[in-house]
């Protein structure tokens, strides 16, 4: 009985903590890194006062936010107002359950991993919509409406991109998808090459999905101030923040796993040490992708909300649909080498 309890309850909780706690620390360091990188790109310094090189800035901000009062606006819907941040955070963290860090390191090696991911990432937007509605503020409501419209357009494009990957890999399991990209040619065996257009579309959709610049219309700082979370303060705001950054890191990991060979090494296996796959490779790839988020933010102007929709519907979805066919043909005629995963 006790054995069973430990097996089924304690170990999973330990595993979950092993993922979420480093993730939360990673978010803190990512926020610091973002401010540093954007600072450098903007010929300024970024945070450099708290701790060595300003490393503790993110923790200082967190503590400050946690100590602040969470203000409830007049006539706000109390229950939904407090529920909304949790609704964004929980899916953002839960999605990590199926992420394989290496061939053996995965919390849940679910067969329908990709479906689970799609479900979780689209859940997050309910939190945003509810936050906007429950705040009883017109700015927040506009942000929520924009976010809803945006998600509808980009979920579709993103889903179609995933279909291409599934067609090639022949599996919904993320570990299998990575294994399908293994091969003797290293870098050139990964799915980014046969699926180049959808790889680009997937990453851009991921940026749009996480409401990051240049698609940050739901926050739209200079138009609707802070959009859906304009009325939130203190820890409730911190939770939105945490969810947004956890999602960014998630999208970076997914792009690496689905298109860039996950933990596989870009070099052929014969190259010795650097030719071996490992969790470090995954981290390096995800780091590069997450850096792109910061780069976009530092350099691009913001799209208008209808232009985002146009980009989603008129450009991304048609290309993705066409590429589903192309991917099907590539697979059917055996033009792509598929690794031993299937």
């Amino acid at each position, binding site marked *: 009985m006790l054995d069973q309890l430990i097996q089924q309850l304690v170990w999973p909780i330990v595993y979950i903590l092993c993922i979420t706690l480093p993730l939360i620390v990673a978010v803190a360091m990512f926020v610091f890194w973002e401010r540093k990188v954007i600072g450098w790109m*903007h*010929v300024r310094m970024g945070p450099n006062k708290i701790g060595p090189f300003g490393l503790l800035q993110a923790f200082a901000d967190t503590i400050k936010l946690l100590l602040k009062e969470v203000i409830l606006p007049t006539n706000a819907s109390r229950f939904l107002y407090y529920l909304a941040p949790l609704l964004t955070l929980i899916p953002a963290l839960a999605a990590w359950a199926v992420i394989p860090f290496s061939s053996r390191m995965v919390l849940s090696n679910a067969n329908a991993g990709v479906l689970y991911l799609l479900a979780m990432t689209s859940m997050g937007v309910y939190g945003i919509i509810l936050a906007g509605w429950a705040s009883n503020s017109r*700015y927040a409501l506009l942000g929520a409406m924009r976010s809803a419209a945006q998600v509808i357009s980009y979920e579709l494009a993103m889903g179609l991109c995933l279909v291409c990957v599934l067609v090639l890999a022949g599996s919904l399991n993320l570990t299998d998808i990575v294994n399908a990209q293994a091969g003797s040619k290293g870098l050139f065996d990964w799915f980014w090459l046969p699926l180049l257009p959808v790889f680009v579309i997937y990453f851009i959709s991921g940026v749009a999905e996480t409401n990051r610049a*240049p698609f940050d219309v739901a926050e739209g700082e*200079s138009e609707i101030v802070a959009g859906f979370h304009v009325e939130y303060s203190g820890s409730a705001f911190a939770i939105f923040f945490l969810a947004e950054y956890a999602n960014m890191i998630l999208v970076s990991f997914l792009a690496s796993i689905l298109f860039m060979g996950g933990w596989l090494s870009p070099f052929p296996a014969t190259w010795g040490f650097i030719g071996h796959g490992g969790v470090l490779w995954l981290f390096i790839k995800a780091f590069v992708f997450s850096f792109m988020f910061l780069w976009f*933010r*530092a350099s691009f102007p913001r799209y*208008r*909300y209808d*232009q985002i929709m146009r980009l989603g519907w008129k450009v991304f979805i048609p290309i993705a649909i066409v590429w589903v066919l192309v991917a099907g043909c590539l697979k059917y005629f055996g033009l792509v080498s598929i690794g031993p995963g299937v």
Partner: protein
Amino acid sequence: MTQEIRNYTMNFGPQHPAAHGVLRLVLEMDGETVVRADPHVGLLHRGSEKLAESKPFNQSIGYMDRLDYMSMMCNEHAYVLAIETLLGIEAPARAQYIRTMFDEITRILNHLLWIGTHGLDLGAMAVFLYAFREREELMDCYEAVSGARMHANYYRPGGVYRDLPAQMPQHRESPWHKGNDLKRLNSWREGSLLDFLDAFTADFPSKVGEYEELLTGNRIWKQRTVGIGVISPELAQQWGMTGAMLRGSGVEWDLRKKQPYAKYAEVDFDIPVGVNGDCYDRYLVRMEEMRQSNRIIRQCVQWLRANPGPVMLKNFKVAPPSRVEMKEDMEAMIHHFKLFSEGYCVPAGETYRAVEAPKGEFGCYLVSDGANKPFRVHLRAPGFAHLSSMDTVVRGHMLADVVAMIGTYDLVFGDVDR
């Protein structure tokens, strides 16, 4: 049962990141589309015009800096010109060249701030900080001649407060400027102000190129500005638009060419005009204006190097005598005392003098009844005329375009509200 669908009203500002100060815009919205825009002004009203009536003429020059606090010396210029016209005096040539040069420095200062904030409004953060890097250098010029970085109070009826400094102040070592960075900053500051400006203007076109690289060809930037807020030439004239707002619509009207003041007739420059009258054209016009201003500054620097001379009239009824003279000469002492207590009396009459300020035509209508204080000062602020067209221009646009439009109007509430 029928239910009526109503538009909703949104209060845009006065505390809003894109309100450029204290614009309160009451928007009637149909979803994201603006049905009616009602700008409310007056939140920064300080009664500058009324204040000027209770002070000797010279003491109001400082107020002019605080009107459009992004184009300080141009405001001073209009006011000083109006006084000079009524007094029937003219500043020495060197002073006029200095004024021309500082008007153009001011234009670059203003346009740099404009491109920064306009970019920030549309989400392009980098340009803002790049523009402020160059602004800092030009602020140093203001500081070198007047001691103040913004509210210079440098122009005077009869000339300018003092000649250009022979030594440009250098940066001291600090936690922010040290090592190579400090050396680079000070390498421009070895000689006089003119040497500094020479170095700056040689470098500045490449900096404008940097901003343009980030924005001009950027597809998102173009989507956000091309075809947004189109103002036809007729509409622009009907609303009394001036400056880049008018030139962006293709009307070639620039007071520096049409009614040259100071030494604009002597310097060589072009007036850029737009074609479509949208936000993008106005952006291009302003970018080109910065390059043209750079050209004018270079010509002024050249002339000022070659021609030393007085920068103030030797007329002690309006201009103070030197300290040395005051120590020895009774007359000078009396003049000094009279000038700094009573001021000078301006012959009765009225005049309107306007300058091409960075934002458009900044004019000063001055009425004197012969006393030592103006009877009435009216200031024609370009921003006020521009803002009044807000409703006509943004009707039917989306909320995000209103932000682009506020940016392209280049509003500063110091001069809209006065």
